[in-house]
């Protein structure tokens, strides 16, 4: 049974030992961010800050909401020990059965317990943290759902795009032209000089926020996907001032309009890449018309930086599954795909049955398929390995790179690719123009090598000893004096 709201999810994390209630007073100015950053870098339980300096006790911050695969499994109602592969299989199975949301009455929507409109709006009411030293401001929206509608087709997009407080009744945030919100804003609203209505739902049940952060195809209603993953419809409620609907159990909902003309300084911000690459710049202003919130609202916060944090978990689960499906549709003999969480969504490892497929330069075919897709188009690094490599084991993957990828013939670079402004390896000019390059590492034995006389035999426990010897050794492991099988 799906979690109805964030609070049920928080309780579930606590039952599994994945939550720590921080009762000591914590400063929203850098201290909370530093704690969250440390938690992420050590993959520790999520902190629920119950006493924020300068704020009443009713205001809390829930940090690191989904920074491990175990927490994602809990969010999906699964055992936290569920393997990566199984999580991705379940993810793909569930999203194939879309479940439309249902609209509930305002009286049944906890997010309407408090309603501030017009002059009553004060975004400083919530303990928005200063997450990193040098950030451009207090980022209220780092783990949330930003909801906007296409004015012509009616398609409603859910996305996750950072927004910082500009003043008591406005935000300012990044709208990348290539992002779905950017497609709506820059191609539809801005040319027509129309403000774009928005709603930001903070502190939703865990799957809605997860889905908002996923890279899904255009014109897909993420609410349907959230319902699919939850295996129950998401409950939505109409906004007070915008023609949009928001998850009814959200902790905080911010409604308003994104100005088609007004911009103000935003950033910098320590981003998911682990670096701060985008200089402070002018970004669109979000004018807030209403804020609704639950009693004792919980503000969710994701303190991005060096992996692994929420961004990496989302990219890994959602992209791995989609890329696997894409390769299978193309008839490629793919075994497994890993968008490695340690690599911030910029590297994908694909294992293939190269000898079975008998397709020369299969690695290039794999890379072309990935780069030609929306989900993989901006992944700069593709590593293709044989099917005897576990793609989830980066030790094995690195071993394959240094032993099977010819340093000259095995590496193919592609110039003139589309990049992202966040990519640290790009020059400042390249980032501003989103110019990048891509590379594929072919770590498969060449097809024309004879498998017996040319391909070197592997020297490992599994390959260098007869089965009888391996079984004998494992059976007697403790008798040799070892404590356990590692």
């Amino acid at each position: 049974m799906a979690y109805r709201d964030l609070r049920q999810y928080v309780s579930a994390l606590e039952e599994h030992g994945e939550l720590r209630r921080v009762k000591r007073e914590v400063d929203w100015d850098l201290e909370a961010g530093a704690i969250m950053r440390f938690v992420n870098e050590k993959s520790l339980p999520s902190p629920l800050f119950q006493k924020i300096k300068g704020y009443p006790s009713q205001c809390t911050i829930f940090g690191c909401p989904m920074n491990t695969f175990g927490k994602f499994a809990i969010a999906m109602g699964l055992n936290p020990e569920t393997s990566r592969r199984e999580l991705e299989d379940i993810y793909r199975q569930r999203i194939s059965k879309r479940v439309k949301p249902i609209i509930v009455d305002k009286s049944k929507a906890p997010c309407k317990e408090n309603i501030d409109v017009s002059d009553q709006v004060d975004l400083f009411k919530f303990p928005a943290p200063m997450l990193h030293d040098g950030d451009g401001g207090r980022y209220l929206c780092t783990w949330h759902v930003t909801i906007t509608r296409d004015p012509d087709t009616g398609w409603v997009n859910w996305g996750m795009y950072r927004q910082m407080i500009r003043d008591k009744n406005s935000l300012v945030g990044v709208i990348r032209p290539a992002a779905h919100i950017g497609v709506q804003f820059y191609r539809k609203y801005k040319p027509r000089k129309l403000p774009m209505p928005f709603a930001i739902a903070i502190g939703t049940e865990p799957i809605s926020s997860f889905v908002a952060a996923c890279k899904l195809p255009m014109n897909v209603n993420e609410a349907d996907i959230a319902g699919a993953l939850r295996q129950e419809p998401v409950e939505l409620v109409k906004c007070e001032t915008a023609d949009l609907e928001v998850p009814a159990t959200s902790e905080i909902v911010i409604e308003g309009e994104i100005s088609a003309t007004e911009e103000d300084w935003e950033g910098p911000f320590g981003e998911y890449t682990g670096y701060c690459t985008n200089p402070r710049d002018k970004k669109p202003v979000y004018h807030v018309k209403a804020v609704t919130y639950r009693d004792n609202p919980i503000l969710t916060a994701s303190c991005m930086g060096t992996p692994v944090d929420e961004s990496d978990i989302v990219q890994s689960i959602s992209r791995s599954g989609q890329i696997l499906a894409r390769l299978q549709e193309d008839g490629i003999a793919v075994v497994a795909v890993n968008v490695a969480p340690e690599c911030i969504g910029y590297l994908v490892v694909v294992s293939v049955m190269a000898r079975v497929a008998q397709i020369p330069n299969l690695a290039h075919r794999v890379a072309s398929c990935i780069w030609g897709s929306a989900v993989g188009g901006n992944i700069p690094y593709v590593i293709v390995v044989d099917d005897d490599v576990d793609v989830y084991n980066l030790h094995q993957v690195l071993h394959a790179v240094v032993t099977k990828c010819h340093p000259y013939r095995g590496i193919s670079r592609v110039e003139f690719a589309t990049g992202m402004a966040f990519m640290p390896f790009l020059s400042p000019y390249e980032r501003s123009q989103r110019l990048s390059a891509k590379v594929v590492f072919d770590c498969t034995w060449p097809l024309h090598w004879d498998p017996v006389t040319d391909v070197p035999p592997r020297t490992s426990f599994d390959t260098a000893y007869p089965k009888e010897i391996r079984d004998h050794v494992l059976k007697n492991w403790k008798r040799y004096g070892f404590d356990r099988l590692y």
Partner: protein
Amino acid sequence: MGRTGYEIFVRNLDELEEDKELIKQIRDGQTYRTKYVRALFSSSSEKLPNGESLWVRSLLGPLLDEKPWRIKIISEV
């Protein structure tokens, strides 16, 4: 935990021409609330003895000068 005084983000220190009234956005070093001001800027406290502390950051966030500059706010814009 913030700094006393104000903060400003600039591309480089040349942007803060000394002894010249400039209109810039600054922010409070502790509340982080921003405002646009007409002000005088100086790298030396002797030149602006009545000025307040101003921490100068690059557009990417790090401090450009370990010591604070001085700002004399003439008016809010």
